[in-house]
């Protein structure tokens, strides 16, 4: 009898728990459309947003699908509205499937929109529960929509191309989470900058199609794009953020012209106090293999190897210093050095926090150290 009572009590509790869930929201997989990339541009009228969403079309990807060859397996839908929400609703109204944000991996901003501030979009994204915080942010010179038209040669859809740009770690990758945390900490960040251009492509039967490339970085401060930096500088920023896979460096010493590939990149940012003021030591470490040397270098010639290493170090440090200076100039703390300061010296950070932007511009002191270690000199002929 007692167990019966317990069981019935338990079932009442369980039924209540079941009814309290919001899980009745069952949507079949073929009643959804999965947004893979989102493109935000400035609208024609001031204050308007031009929103484009790209989504795969599974029915055209399926092996027994009805879509014949020649049709793109992806779609792009655009709408204009005064807010993201308005534009979204316009898009949803015309769609036969429910929009699902769970697979949006890339958010692309047009340069004009980015310069005005991406605050609205970021706010909307951070309130959308399904949006992955690991999505990537990119900026395009010109209109973001144009990137959506790029020709996916190796991938299925343009959004795959953009995603792979980030995951390959060839240049820079900036995730939603670091953008949001940078904003909360009143610091800056750098996002990859893309450019589209027309190109004649062999794979597309020599027709002229649109091609996208990574051309550097966009510096942000308080959710506004303030400046752009060159590819070399962007790569060193990625290196300092430990998000760089490999890096090719070409240097000229007095005797040789050499190019090397840096791998196993790592970095360390340390802050110490010098006369009561924070001083940042940014150390870039990496191993390298020598790809080419002219004239031919002998392994025994350690002095030359050292020289090449040193030149490479100088070049890399200079790039990073320049990138940070560019940010400094616009009051943007793109490496989030303030975060390091908070970690190491919370009291000093508390004092500097209100004036951090000005501090970055006028007083920030740092030193970049690069340690590239050539591990392989490659094979060479003995004569």
């Amino acid at each position, binding site marked *: 009898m007692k167990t019966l009572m317990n069981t019935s009590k338990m079932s009442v509790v369980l039924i209540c728990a079941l009814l309290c869930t919001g899980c009745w929201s069952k949507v*079949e*997989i073929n009643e959804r459309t*999965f947004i893979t990339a989102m493109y935000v541009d400035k609208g024609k009228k001031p204050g308007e947003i031009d929103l484009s969403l790209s989504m795969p079309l599974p029915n055209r990807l399926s092996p027994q699908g009805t879509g014949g060859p020649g049709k793109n397996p992806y779609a792009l839908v655009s709408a204009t509205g005064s807010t993201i929400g308005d534009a979204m609703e316009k898009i949803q109204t015309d769609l036969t499937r429910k929009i699902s944000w769970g697979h949006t991996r890339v958010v692309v901003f047009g340069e004009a929109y980015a310069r005005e501030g991406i605050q609205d979009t970021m706010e909307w994204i951070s309130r959308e529960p399904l949006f992955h915080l690991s999505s990537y942010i990119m900026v395009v010179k010109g209109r973001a929509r144009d990137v959506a038209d790029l020709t996916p040669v190796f991938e299925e859809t343009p959004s795959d191309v953009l995603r792979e740009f980030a995951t390959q770690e060839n240049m820079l990758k900036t995730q939603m989470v670091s953008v949001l945390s940078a904003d909360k900490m009143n610091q800056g960040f750098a996002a990859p900058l893309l450019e589209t251009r027309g190109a004649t492509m062999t794979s597309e039967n020599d027709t002229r199609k649109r091609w996208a490339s990574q051309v550097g970085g966009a510096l942000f401060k308080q959710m506004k794009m303030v400046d752009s930096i060159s590819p070399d500088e962007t790569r060193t920023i990625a290196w300092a953020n430990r998000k760089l896979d490999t890096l090719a460096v070409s240097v000229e010493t007095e005797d040789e012209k050499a190019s090397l590939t840096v791998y196993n990149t790592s970095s360390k940012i340390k802050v110490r106090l010098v006369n009561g003021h924070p001083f940042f030591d940014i150390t870039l470490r990496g191993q390298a293999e020598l790809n080419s040397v002219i004239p031919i270098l002998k392994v025994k010639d350690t002095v030359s190897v050292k020289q090449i290493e040193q030149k490479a170090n100088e070049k890399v440090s200079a790039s990073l210093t320049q990138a940070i200076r560019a940010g400094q100039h616009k009051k943007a703390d793109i490496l989030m050095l303030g975060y390091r300061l908070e970690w190491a010296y919370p009291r000093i950070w508390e004092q500097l926090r209100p004036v951090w932007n000005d501090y970055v511009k006028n007083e920030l002191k740092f030193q970049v150290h690069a340690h590239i270690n050539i591990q392989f000199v490659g094979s060479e002929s003995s004569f």
Partner: protein
Amino acid sequence: MEKDNIYEQVKARLLGVADMIYQPFQVGPFHCELIYIQSIVDTPTMREAIVKPLLEEASRNEIDPLFITRVVTGSFFTLHSHHSDSAEAIVDDIVSGNAALYIEGISGMIHFALQNYQRRSVTESTNEVVVVGPQEAFIEDIHVNMSLLRHKIKHPDLKMVKFTIGKYTKTEVFVVYIQGLCKPDILENVLTSLGEIDMDSSLGVSYLSEFLEDHPLSPFPQYQYTERPDTVAAALLEGRIGVMQDGTPFSLLIPVTFFSLMQSSEDYYQRFHSASFIRIIRLLFAFIAFFLPSFYVAVTTFHPEIIPTNLLITIASARENIPFPALIEALIMEVTFEGLREAGIRIPKPLGQTVSIIGGIVIGQAAVQAGIVSAPLVIVVSITGIAAFIIPHFELGLAFRLLRFPVLFMGGTLGLFGIVISIYLIYWYMVGLRSFGVPYMQPFAPLVLRDIKDTIVRVPWFLMKKRPAAYVDADKKRQKT
């Protein structure tokens, strides 16, 4: 004739039994009659050991004056015999394969245990196949089974208690155990339960198992079937109790725990690395058998964001033209699979091939091509189907297969939340379940640290110095080395 009263009663009881043989002959002054059923009596032995001595006695000039006494006391025949006065007992013995000798002048009859039922020879185990290790399996004859078991354990502490169950079948049931190893209260419990059973028949040991269980309504088996003498021997040596029944090649082992049902005798014959690996695989697949279809349905209908994008698009494109919701689709496939499986077992052997071909084509190809079910779901259902068969004990596999359906409903209506609730409920139930007083999830709940050595993994033999605490009574030590 007063003397022939019992004889007449016996004849009256056996009236209408057409295969009865009444073989009269004369030994000196005594009229004798041998009563038996030819098909179940060992006739050559009977001729050699009963008829021949009697005829030799008859051919003497003078009958031994002590002849009657010697026959009644059993010292005349070289065969074990006994004398009975009760007509009931005599008839019962005759129909169970004894030969009864009636000699005029003796009250009652002399019986000879000459049963010779038809039986097949000992064959290889087909349901619990091992690669390395003993191959023989039990057969239907209890005496052969006993011989197989006694071959493994040669110790006077191996005890057997005999029951006769079934008003019509009079089936011999033996409870076997090792005195000093098994827990006396469990033994007492089993003996009492068996003593109370009053049935018409017991044609398989499963008839008894449902009477013995503490929770007969539970989907989880609280006993274990085995057809392997080595498994029975190992179980007895762990302190468990076996119930063997005549006429069935399976014997029952009690008590069990969940983990003992997840073990195969193969585990102990193979090297411990591979045995441990296989056990982990088995647990993994048990989990898959439970949850894979419901997980698939829950994830695709409620939480597509947790599927990697590329996989999601593959699934979405396969599901594009499917008319049914994922839950219905999964149910159709699961039920079809269960039907096919059952058909595969019941179908007459010559037709078996047909069913598997038709089933394979229908499920694997035509249904997908027709756009009725999606290919990923076919994969899910096939993996689940295979997974349920990896569980070494068929009864436990059945439990898993049955419970899959409620979990599927929960997953299909409440998403992962429903699955979590199902896991919780099932685990809750399993932890509370007891098999003959032994907690089902021992050694994990309650936690017995030293027994975990033989659950998820199997440690080498030299580390298994003690018997599992779940079953054993006094003598915990298994080995010194």
